[in-house]
């Protein structure tokens, strides 16, 4: 399943770090951060609940870039 979330982040390098962090989160198959449109496209693993995964994604992103935000 694929979902697109609006995000807020200040710099391109931070967006890159968010992408890496999101990809390393369990339950995420592939995440692509688009800094220009401020969107994150997340493809989830089979059978996981995005509502359960997204808070973890946000938490991991905050670890690498504490001023980022994901709206879900």
């Amino acid at each position, binding site marked *: 399943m694929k979902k697109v979330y609006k995000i807020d982040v*200040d*710099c*391109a*390098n931070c967006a*890159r*770090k968010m992408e890496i962090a999101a990809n390393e989160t369990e339950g995420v198959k592939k995440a*692509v951060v*688009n*800094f*220009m*449109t*401020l*969107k994150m*496209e997340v493809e989830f693993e089979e059978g996981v609940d995005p509502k359960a995964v997204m808070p973890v994604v946000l938490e991991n992103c905050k*670890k*690498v870039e*504490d*001023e980022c935000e994901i709206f879900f």
Partner: protein
Amino acid sequence: MSKKQKKMLKRILISSALMIVLGFLPLEGILKFALYMVPYYIIGHDILRKAFLGVKNKQMFDESFLMAVATVGAIILGEYTEGVAVMLFFQIGEWFQSYAVGKSRRNISQLMDIRPDYANIEDESGNLEQVDPDEVAIGTVIVVQPGEKVPIDGVVTEGTSTLNTSALTGESLPRDVEEGDEIISGCINMTGLLRIRTTKEFGESTVSKILDMVENASSRKSRSENFISKFAHYYTPIVCYSALALAFIPPVVLMVLGRPAMWGTWIYRALTFLVISCPCALVISIPLSFFAGIGGASNAGVLVKGSNYLEALAYTKYVVFDKTGTMTQGVFEVAGIHHRQMEEEKLLEYAAHAESYSSHPISKSIQKAYGALVDMNRVSDVQEIGGHGIVAKVDGMEVLAGNGKLMDKYGIEYIPCEEAGTVVHIAVGGKFAGHILISDLIKPTAKQAISDLKKIGIKKTVMLTGDARTVAENVARELNIDRVHSELLPGDKVDKVEELLSAKGEKENLVFVGDGINDAPVLSRADIGIAMGAMGSDAAIEAADVVLMDDDPMKIAKAIKIAKKCVGIVYQNIYFAIGVKVLCLILGAVGIANMWLAIFSDVGVMVIAVLNAIRALNVKNL
């Protein structure tokens, strides 16, 4: 300016003012330190906090960390002015970057401001009600008032008007529509009230598809972007360890040699190293260039589905076209009926009936020439043979309508046509009955399009068509196309493209331009597929990587030029940024570059790279 930017600007201005005042005061000792700490705290407290959090979360090598170490280091060495200035310039750079990115983000979204917010539906008493376009079912009649955007694709059922299609096609010429015309969403209705029966859902309408395409475009990353990601991954740690080595190894070696260690000098050089090392200029400017390039292209009516395609387009060396609908208008007219063995009307009647189930432009032109209504009940057993024609029973008689190959297949003797055009041979009851000559007009800009392509260094232009040789060669000669392959079945086109693909060099890309359902496999097989949008089939648009919104073949060269400009800017930035950084690193290591030069190589380079990247947005004069 956003709230954050305003706040940051205030911090920058206050600390700059403080620095200027402090510069004029004769300060010494602890008082000097304390006073310089005020602007340092104002400008840098968030960076210090981030650096601390980074270390705590094991994310050491980010720019906050670098800046914190470099400035704290400078202050410990007693270089207060430099320490604060580095932080100040770093923040100015960050502020500028965020401002520039925000501005180009807004510019591009303005260009793409075609999303309709509502659709009007009329209730029984004639009042208009605004509803969410998502909720409008197929077949609903919607009302579009002058000045409003057409929200959903459909057919005009009532009214005439002029449409402004520039947001979609980049074409400033308005288009007239009247009852019965198809209308695509995203156009602006300029003059009259229109009632439109929708033929698609909002999500499937042109405007949604375009927005979807452009918004997702920069998620498909180009090779250059991936290169930078990898580069940053290795580069930052390497520079950090080099800085560490620079701070400790030379002094230790000097000590071993029994000379003064000069710890201060070497640590200062190491800190300079750290300031230079930030990869921001590259990390921001490359995606920004592609984003701006894609935005500029969509403003010119060229939709690019991803940064990777824009990049690939810049290396185009071969352009392969489909003929009908791409180089020609795809509007056919019956130009003559030759060698008929029966009444002209009778021949047309058979032809029109046999072709009545086909939506091919050729069969439409025959229907048009026939004029009267086709009685579907008289037609049965219709069989379409791809690349040949149609076999059907009309009034119980077997009617063949198609090219020479169809006649050969059924063993019917026929008279070939000498004139250029598409020939539909008709056989009734197993006997040749004559042929209908149909001609297609070449697009007025087609010739210019080919010469434009030659001018920008395309090695070879090739035309592929299912049409007869005479027609194909005529068109090719008129347009100056290098090679032409005619009488191809849909599958043959793929083979021909495969052939060309295997013959070309590695860094030479092949573009295929087409519009029909048959073209979808070729579009996906080519390095880059370009579809003609306004006339193209959904399958073609789906399979293509680039869509030309207004069917103008001149846009092919324009798209390539936009891509070249964009990729050129990307390379300028890569060479410039890496070049300046490496130079400054060397100068810093041997002690020629001081902290000020280091700041330039970080912030200055980033500002220049960002400004350069924004140039990609301007594609007007290409």
